């Protein structure tokens, strides 16, 4: 048994034994937990990954004459200005105001440029008051010019993050990178055995051994502190809210990124020292990649609750490939696909190594937490959901393929519709006819439905959210989609009018 005070004394004297969480695995394996707990004083951890929920409070100082800034832009990226006169918060995921630049240079890029000492253009508008007469201001600033630049990140350092794959027959662009069609890759994120929260976790109590409010940490190459649990904190998917001084940070550990067709985000290096006070703490610090379970979800399902495809662990994920049992077109198949990481284990190691060196050099002392992390809570939003089946015109108007083009035309006119799904004897969709197809048939002198119908029909499932169907229709530039049930039987058609009626009523 040791105390943090005793460990700090050793650090000051240059006598502390400090190892990384990776080195600790070996020590415990070779020497046993008891000896390891006696011998090792501090285990350093690290993680380096995309942390969208990050941002910086900036105080720009007052201009003369002074301005009460309301709309604030840094290099054309909007910062939140609903604070006191010259305070603002710039968030990593904010896109550029210029739609041509958009996510290629967002809030994260402004933050990295500031850390790199680059000049950033500040443009702000305000409303005038007796004490703040100025209307706008436009200046170039650097990190040195501002009074404070305090990074405050509502959610960093996920303990584990679920891995992602994609069941759809097309590529999808997500915050987990580009997911190939038909489960052809698995992307994962997280430092696993090096992750700070993972190494400090007590699975029985679902709480953390030493980490808490006030714990001093490595944040972006500078010193930071844990403010409390992060948003959506829910161990074993724990998260942290942290703060640090941007002026101390190093651009090596603060990197702006753009997830293709998703958004801008900030990669942050974050490391936490764990004091080895007893055997229980030492034992947990020997956790290995293979001990950490990682669920793989299907991101091809654009719903909050994504289907679980498999459960695996970080060791398998880091091996470069994984075998999945999946269902493609109704057939169960075994598929071995490539895995790719979205976070950087190499940089996580560098974080843990750097923090270890700081402690060995006596530059970084440990702190006692002042309180435990707050309660876990991660429940869904009470948002209403509209499924396609809720907005369908029923009963469905369909036709068999043996009718004449004239008959098809009559059906369209009679029901005042533009889309006519063609079905087989069981009501299963085999094609679709639109009024445009009928016009074309006349022009080209075609005789049968079979000749003019579109066979590769884009469909919607009756349980799909209406928002998703709206996205599909604009993506493929179509004005109507047949809706099918589990057996591919047509249950109705959704048209762009149905969709605009639905969304027209809302804002």
């Amino acid at each position: 048994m040791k105390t943090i005070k005793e460990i700090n004394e050793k650090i000051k004297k240059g006598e502390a034994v400090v190892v990384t969480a990776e080195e600790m695995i070996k020590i415990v394996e070779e020497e046993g937990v008891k000896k390891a707990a006696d011998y090792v004083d501090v285990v350093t951890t690290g993680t380096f990954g995309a942390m969208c929920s990050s941002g910086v409070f900036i105080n720009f100082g007052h201009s003369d004459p002074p301005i009460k800034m309301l709309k604030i832009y840094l290099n054309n990226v909007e910062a939140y200005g609903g604070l006191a006169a010259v305070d603002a918060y710039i968030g990593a995921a904010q896109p550029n105001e210029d739609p041509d630049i958009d996510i290629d240079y967002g809030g994260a890029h402004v933050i990295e440029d500031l850390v790199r000492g680059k000049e950033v253009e500040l443009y702000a508008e305000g409303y005038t008051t007796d004490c703040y007469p100025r209307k706008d201001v436009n200046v170039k600033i650097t990190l040195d010019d501002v009074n404070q630049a305090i990074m405050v990140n509502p959610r960093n350092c996920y303990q584990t993050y679920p891995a992602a794959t994609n069941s759809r027959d097309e590529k999808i662009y997500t915050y987990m990178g580009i997911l190939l069609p038909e489960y052809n890759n698995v992307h994962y994120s997280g430092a696993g055995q090096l992750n700070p929260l993972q190494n400090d976790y007590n699975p029985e109590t679902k709480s953390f051994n030493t980490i808490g409010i006030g714990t001093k940490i490595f944040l972006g190459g500078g010193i930071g502190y844990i403010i409390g649990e992060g948003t959506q904190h829910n161990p074993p998917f724990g998260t942290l809210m942290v703060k640090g001084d941007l002026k101390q940070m190093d651009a090596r550990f603060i990197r702006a990124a753009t997830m293709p067709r998703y958004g801008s985000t900030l990669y942050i290096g974050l490391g936490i020292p764990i004091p080895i006070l007893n055997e229980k703490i030492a034992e947990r610090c020997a956790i290995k990649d293979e001990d950490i379970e990682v669920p793989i979800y299907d991101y091809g399902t654009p719903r909050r609750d994504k289907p679980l495809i498999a459960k695996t662990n970080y060791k398998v994920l880091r091996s470069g490939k994984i075998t999945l049992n999946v269902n493609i077109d109704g057939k169960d198949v075994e598929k071995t696909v490539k895995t790719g990481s979205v976070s950087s284990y190499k940089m996580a190691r560098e974080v843990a190594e750097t923090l270890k060196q700081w402690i060995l050099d006596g530059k970084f002392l440990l702190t006692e937490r002042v309180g435990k992390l707050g309660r876990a809570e991660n429940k869904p939003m009470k948002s209403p959901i509209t499924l396609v089946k809720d907005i369908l015109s029923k009963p469905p108007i369909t036709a068999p393929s043996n009718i004449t083009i004239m008959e098809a035309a009559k059906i369209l006119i009679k029901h005042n519709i533009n889309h006519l799904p063609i079905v087989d004897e069981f009501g299963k969709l085999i094609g679709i006819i639109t009024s445009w197809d009928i016009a074309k048939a006349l022009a080209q002198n075609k005789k049968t439905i079979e000749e003019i119908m579109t066979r590769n029909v884009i469909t919607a499932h009756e349980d799909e959210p209406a928002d998703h169907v709206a996205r599909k229709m604009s993506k493929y530039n179509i004005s109507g989609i047949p809706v099918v049930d589990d057996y591919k039987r047509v249950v109705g058609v959704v048209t762009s009018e149905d969709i605009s009626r639905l969304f027209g009523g809302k804002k």
Partner: protein
Amino acid sequence: MRKRIYYWTDSKHINKPVISDTILNTGVKINILKAKVEPQEAFLILELFGSKETIEKALNYLSKFGEVEEISKVIKRDLEKCVHCGCCITQCPINAIYMDEDYSVIFKEEECVGCKNCVKACPFKAIEIIE
């Protein structure tokens, strides 16, 4: 030996089995790495295997029906920008990118065919293809 080429077929030859004919007539082995067929032309990335002579013959044969360009693209990664995340690894159609035991992301540059998939996937814009 092995050679990689870009191949554009003219529209008038699009309906002919040019690739199979090349294989049958010259005995070359062909691996199709990418194929994009449009109404006006077809674009393919091919990998040819065989002796020097066979490959020469195959190239001559292919030239009769379209345009051949040997792939000489080089991939360049800015190591200052690369954080070794791995977002690019699974995007490579020919498995030229992998993570080594040290968790560094490695490009087998000599195998790259310049498809740019990795360029589009990299969140840090660290990769460039130099023509």
